[in-house]
């Protein structure tokens, strides 16, 4: 037994990054670009620190040579603070953390709801470049919230869009279009990120059709690297920040709280 029984860990603390560029992806939805090579895999997230305002998790939405980005939906005090920031301002970035999507599958469907589409953009590009045939079904409340339309077109990724109000594409849910894709496109794996009600529907469909699937879950994260337990899931105790955020369809079946409830920052249950 010596001092080096275990590998030295890198520091877990934010590093300041100047915002390179802010791009409006959709209504209340901005992409923040940073210099750097975090070496993230699709599905991983970073903890974003705004001194004074707090620290919150966001999935990596773009990663290119020398730069990367997160795409943020404005929903509350922290994201509002972010929306007040512009190129040149600095934020702290910690991570990337978490288990990524497996990137398996030859013909895959990516199903994204709301800002859940953010990590799927990155996944689509990586899998497409890796030779998989990628289909995307993404939905939002209305056309003004739809993101990455240009991006998918540019990458020659077949994407279908749904809106709750029918203002663009299919009127209804992105899960409706998933059913269509499964019927026509010989999909061998589904990747999904978005509101939990939507994930539940994707899980139901994939179970029925016998298609493998992966899901990115959201829970209240505090530390982001597996020590505090605020993101532990009932049934298994798995940590969303460590064993997740991505779980397989099979794993989902063991997470008893899935689709039912989650916890807030104090640990109190809130139904979904």
């Amino acid at each position, binding site marked *: *037994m010596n001092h080096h*029984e*275990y590998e030295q*860990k890198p*520091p*877990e*603390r*934010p*590093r*300041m990054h100047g915002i390179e560029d802010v791009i409006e992806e959709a209504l209340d939805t901005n992409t923040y670009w940073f210099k750097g090579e975090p070496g993230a895999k699709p599905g991983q997230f970073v*903890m974003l*620190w705004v*001194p*004074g305002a*707090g*620290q*919150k998790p966001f999935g990596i939405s773009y990663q290119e040579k020398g730069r990367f980005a997160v795409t943020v939906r404005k929903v509350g005090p922290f994201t509002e603070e972010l929306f007040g920031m512009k190129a040149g301002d*600095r934020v*702290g970035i*910690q991570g990337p953390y978490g288990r990524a999507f497996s990137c398996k599958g030859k013909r895959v469907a990516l199903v994204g709801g709301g800002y859940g589409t953010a990590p799927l953009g990155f996944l689509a590009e990586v899998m497409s470049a890796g030779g998989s045939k990628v289909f995307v079904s993404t939905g939002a409340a209305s056309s003004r919230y739809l993101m990455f339309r240009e991006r998918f077109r540019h990458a020659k990724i077949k994407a279908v869009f749904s809106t709750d109000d029918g203002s663009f594409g299919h009127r209804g849910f992105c899960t409706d279009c998933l059913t269509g894709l499964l019927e026509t496109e010989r999909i061998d794996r589904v990747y999904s990120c978005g509101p939990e009600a939507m994930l539940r529907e994707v899980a139901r469909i994939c179970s029925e059709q016998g298609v493998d699937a992966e899901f990115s879950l959201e829970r209240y994260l*505090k*530390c982001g*690297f*597996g*020590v*505090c*337990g*605020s993101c*532990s*899931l*009932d*049934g*298994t*105790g*798995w*940590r969303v920040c*460590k064993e997740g955020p991505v779980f397989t369809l099979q794993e989902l079946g063991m997470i*008893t709280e899935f689709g039912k409830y989650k*916890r*807030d*920052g*104090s*640990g*109190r*249950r809130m139904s979904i």
Partner: protein
Amino acid sequence: MSKVPANLTIGLFGKKLRNPLILASGFLGVTKSSLKNVAQNGAGAVTIKSISREPRQGHKPPVVLTNGDVMINAVGYSNPGIEEAKREFSGLGDVGVPVIASIIGEDARELGYMAKNFLSREFAAVEVPLSCPHTPGYGLLAGQGTPEATLEITKAVKGSTSLPVIIKISANVQSIGEVAKAAVKGGADAINVTNTIGPGMFIDVQARKPVLGFGVGGLSGPAIKPIAVRCVFDVYEAVRGSGIPIIGTGGVTTGQDAVELIMAGASAVGIGSAIHFRGIEVFRQVCGEMAGFMESEGFSGIKEMVGIAHD
């Protein structure tokens, strides 16, 4: 040196633990499922995250950071409060190992209330941290680290529950032996030493600001182990006559670390930050390393090692 098969079991509060490693409070202990997951990774017993009377959101994130061998935290005792915690921590048999409760309160009276109203017989014991260095209203910041306060609080909790009571004391006091003696005098059934050290502070030189949401936080992890060893050593000297067991906590990351605390006087060992430094498998790894050490050094049981650095 003769090779004997090492037996890691210990007795604590009349219960048998399969090994002396106890999940430290504040790590993963938010839910019963999470405790069970830790048990499945090898812990001998687990402690829940400390519960207060009312729900608490805790300090603003960042709440935990690391650098090198140091972890720093200012979680600020986020917890769902007594009512929800009662629901959460029922049916504890599912966990598979003894579950220790942890309660906090602003004074002896509130802690007495907590003991009376929160603790079910399903818990194996209750731990009372009088030693958090970074949460206003509690622990050191509420003056709970003195021998006087320790005596008063220990009595109040003992008077309100039939569970064994563990008093968790701080390294950040000059008179640690006096505090330990006060706990013994108040009727404590065990002493846990130590909580986090400091507090400390990380400043980001580019942001030009403290990083933790609360500014300062307690230190834990491998870097604090020498302090934990000294504290256990000192407390052992102070309470030796009483036969009260010590739970040694602070920086334990390897089997050798655990043995070090045991030789200093600990009967059981808390593990927290090592869940980060080595992963959640750390409990099983430390057990393996302890067994290997004991076999090569000719120790057949934990008890043989307790406090032998004093002789």
